[in-house]
């Protein structure tokens, strides 16, 4: 379809912080290794750390973030049973085995550390995060209330981006009166257009559905976990107008 599209969600900040946590892990491993008097083979150290990583963990949601809390050091136990048979062998490996287990918490720490950066680069309450690339905009009529041949005014959008105001999308009374207490045949959809051919901010990995209000002055962004509604002073759509 469009050129913005990639095969996977490209999440810049998580990728960077995952890399950083591996670097941190590598650094600690290197420090431990240089301290050792009797050197283990390097590949054995690597395997030990990776096996040590295995753990029974629980997933906890903290706001939007999925946190993996490692609880039972399964990998550590496993290695202990294998290594304990020979004298002194466990002692030589022990620090790396536990490093493997604790590195679960290194990853966790970096994940937490990434949150403010994510918010800084991709503020969750700003329209520009969700609607920042407008390549080939198309207003699709999703309801008969839509007028034909409406065109999204990309320039106007970027001009007004900074002055758009966050608003509440509806109030209960309005919804009840306008939709629940009105016969289907009389119901007018207030967001009859969906805007496609756009992209979120580069590296955010976000997908959203963007609805445009009947008068062209409201934009309703729906992601998988939140919704944002913005109003502008001038309409962003035009009948068959140029961009």
């Amino acid at each position, binding site marked *: 379809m469009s050129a913005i599209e990639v095969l996977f969600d490209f999440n810049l900040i998580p990728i960077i912080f995952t890399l950083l946590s591996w670097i941190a892990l590598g650094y600690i491993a290197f420090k431990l290794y240089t301290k050792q008097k009797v050197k283990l083979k390097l590949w054995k150290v690597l395997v030990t750390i990776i096996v040590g990583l295995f753990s029974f963990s629980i997933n906890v949601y903290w706001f939007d973030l999925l946190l993996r809390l490692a609880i039972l050091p399964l990998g550590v136990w496993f290695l202990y049973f294998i290594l304990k048979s020979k004298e002194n062998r466990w002692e030589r490996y022990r620090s790396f085995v536990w490093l493997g287990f604790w590195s679960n918490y290194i990853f966790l720490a970096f994940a937490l550390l990434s949150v403010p950066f994510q918010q800084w680069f991709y503020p969750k309450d700003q329209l520009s995060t969700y609607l920042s690339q407008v390549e080939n905009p198309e207003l699709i009529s*999703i309801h008969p209330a839509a007028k034909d041949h409406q065109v999204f005014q990309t320039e106007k959008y970027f001009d007004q981006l900074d002055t758009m105001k966050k608003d509440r999308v509806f109030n209960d009374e309005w919804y009840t009166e306008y939709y629940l207490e009105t016969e289907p045949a009389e*119901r007018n959809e207030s967001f009859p257009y969906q805007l496609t051919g756009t992209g979120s901010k580069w590296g955010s990995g976000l997908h959203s559905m963007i609805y445009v209000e009947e008068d062209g002055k409201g934009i309703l962004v*729906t992601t998988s976990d939140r919704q944002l509604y913005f109003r502008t002073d001038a309409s962003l759509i035009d009948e068959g107008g140029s961009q």
Partner: protein
Amino acid sequence: MKKQSWILTGIVLLGVVIGLAGWFYLSEPVSFPTDAQLMNEIHEMFPEAAVDVIQDIIHADERHTVVPFISERQEYGLSYWIWKNRKWQVAHIDMNGEPRVWKVDQQDPSSYHFVWNISPADQLSTLQLYMIRERGQRISEEVVEEETYYPRVQMEWVTSLKDSSYGVMPLPEDGVQILDSFLKTKAKHQPELFFENFSPTQEIHFSWIAKDQSGNEAYPESSVNGDSYSVSNISVDYMMIFSEEQLELPDRK
């Protein structure tokens, strides 16, 4: 020397196996079977079908084909064929042709096709197909009071039943784009617990209304009863019949 020749043999064997597998699974479809062959295979799988006439052969894509037929009992049915394991195979047979959606690839809305075969005995003239998502709202009071609103999706496509009883219609581009964005937004590996209480009506579904010669809503009595027979696991989804009363702004098209 001996070891080397073993490795070489291994490589050659592996190449042959991969080549064979590729030839077997990825081969380009050959020409479609003749009507007699089609009828044979349907009867082999499902003798009760008693196919009398093969009406047409409609390719949804290179490897997926719909074959509408009429049975000896004057049932207007549909059979779905897939090119698989170097053979055209019947995957599913419906002994009634009420409108359905064949999701050739569930994850790819551009592969969705509306299919139908409505008996002329029902005397219908038009078929209206819909993609609907119910309107919804929610007020969360967790941290700050926050409203969420889901616009209603009501997209309509109209097709004529006058010229032929059957049809295969790819989901139009507008619908594909809406569904695509819907799937993408939803597919994010978000906490499921969140989505569940987000909105229970967050689903898009397909629906239909049929009209008779004088433009009145009609129910295709003789096209909705009949068995279905599935050979392989494909998704041919049933579509709920809709009524004009449920439509919003029915006069604006």
